[in-house]
């Protein structure tokens, strides 16, 4: 056995306890201290419900767009050659590497009425900034890398022999794609979808600027939590946070299960 078991176990557990477990338990304690009625009241209030709608609804739409277009982007990056491909590939990671606040103000500036895109859309009656559309646009931005980067390795690994077999058996390109290639990609697409969704639901910095934070319209759950904190309504904030955490845990479990399924499916 390699040496170092006790030191690494010690460091790992200490770090995790200090940074994750103990603070998390603080939150659990706080939640336990709330009355069930108060809890229910907070999380089912009209403003909260509107926030759920924006956060979860917007994230769902954004994740769908990301899954679809992410597949296209991954396909193009893996299979085609064109000038600037390396740059495009690197840029996919930008939403991951870029600070959320910077993304937030950049997106707002572009899509506001005087912005480059906003000014072109306004005459057609489309308002992006300070409207639910804008929130969804920001959510698409943050979820992009997840959708692409979960599908890309699967495509790279893909055994083209199955494709070739399909072609020799007389299938058209579209039939081959639908029957042979796409089914292999489904698990990773679902994982990418789940990750993009989870990311969009929890995102704060990128969205908080472009949304304008209009209660009942474009307010997202994270912002509602911050508002409650600023009003020292710790219990209210905690209640909402518990809702979000539960959602996150469920999603995490689902995505891990999906990843396990992907691996098992591939091994066959």
């Amino acid at each position, binding site marked *: *056995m*390699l040496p170092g*078991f006790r030191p690494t176990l010690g*460091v790992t557990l200490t*770090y*995790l306890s200090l*940074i*994750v477990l103990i*603070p998390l338990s*603080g*939150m659990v*304690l*706080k939640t336990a201290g709330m009355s069930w009625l108060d809890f229910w009241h907070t999380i089912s209030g009209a403003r909260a419900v509107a926030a759920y709608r924006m956060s979860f609804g917007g994230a769902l739409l954004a994740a769908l767009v990301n899954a679809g*277009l992410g597949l*296209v*982007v991954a*396909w*193009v*990056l893996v299979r085609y050659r064109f000038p600037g491909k390396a740059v*495009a590939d*690197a*840029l*996919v*990671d*930008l939403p*991951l*590497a*870029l*600070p*959320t*606040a*910077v993304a*937030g*103000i*950049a997106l707002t*500036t*572009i899509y506001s009425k005087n912005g*480059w*895109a906003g000014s072109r859309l306004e005459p057609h009656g489309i308002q992006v900034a300070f409207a639910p559309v804008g929130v969804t646009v920001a959510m*698409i*931005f943050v979820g*992009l890398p997840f959708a692409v980067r979960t599908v890309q390795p699967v495509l790279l690994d893909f055994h083209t022999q199955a494709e070739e077999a399909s*072609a020799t058996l007389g299938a058209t*390109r579209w039939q081959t794609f639908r029957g042979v290639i796409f089914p292999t990609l489904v698990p990773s697409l679902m994982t990418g979808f789940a990750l993009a969704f989870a990311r969009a*639901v*929890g995102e*704060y*910095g990128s969205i908080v*600027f472009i949304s304008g934070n209009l209660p009942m319209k474009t307010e997202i759950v*994270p912002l509602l*939590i*911050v508002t409650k*904190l600023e009003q*020292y309504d*710790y219990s209210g*904030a905690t209640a909402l*946070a518990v809702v*979000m955490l539960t959602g996150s845990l469920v*999603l*995490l479990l689902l995505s891990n299960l999906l990843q396990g399924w992907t691996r098992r499916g591939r091994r066959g």
Partner: protein
Amino acid sequence: MTMTESWPVRFLLIGLTLGFLGLFVVLPMLSVFVEAFARGLGPYLAKLMQPDALSAIQLTLLVASIAVPLNVVFGVSAAWLICKYRFWGKSVLVTLIDLPFSVSPVVSGLIYVLMFGRRSVLGTWLEQHDIHIIFTTPGIVLATIFVTFPFVAREVIPLMQDQGNDEEEAALTLGASGWRVLFQVTLPKIKWGLLYGITLCTARTMGEFGAVSVVSGHIRGRTTTMPLEVEILYNEYDTVGAFALASLLMFLALATLIAKKIIEVSQHRT
């Protein structure tokens, strides 16, 4: 390849890709620089020299210089633990490491406020000992660590797993001690993945917004990091100022992307 899509289909897909990336990534990126330099180089530099801007930069660098090395130590330890031994509970460990990824940054900050804030579990005890965590730098460091520690670990763990333990065992049979094995065999093996993890972790540490926003107290000149300062300037309609600071962060993000490409290329060569 004799079997591939027809030309028009390919053009359409490439066009879609470039359009999608252009609209959602390139456009925001360019706008940062356009707005930052909207009034020219002089005002750009002047904004960066503002005392509040400078102290924000300083705080951000301080937080990064504490958080990143700690995260590296953790990341390598956790990877060693997970990849070199058999024990029960490994998947629990991995889930815990993944946790910050799936938690909203605002909730991450909230967790610390609930633990260390004034009306919290430890709050009264801390006040009695005159220890302040929330609304001060230590709180910002803690919240940042929470959000960014997975980055190094998640890069290094699959890498170590892939590489296996043969070389380490060989070194053992040749008489090497544990530390020697770590520094002379393992670290060189994971060099590229570790470097990328550090780069990414640094970028995320300096750019963290949501969690720090909750924990910080937003006191300009004292507890604002660069992203927080950007928010404040933007809300005051100081566009050039906000985007000037933002451009620094954008440079950092681009440097991260370039570093990743370089590392990918180097890995392919060795």
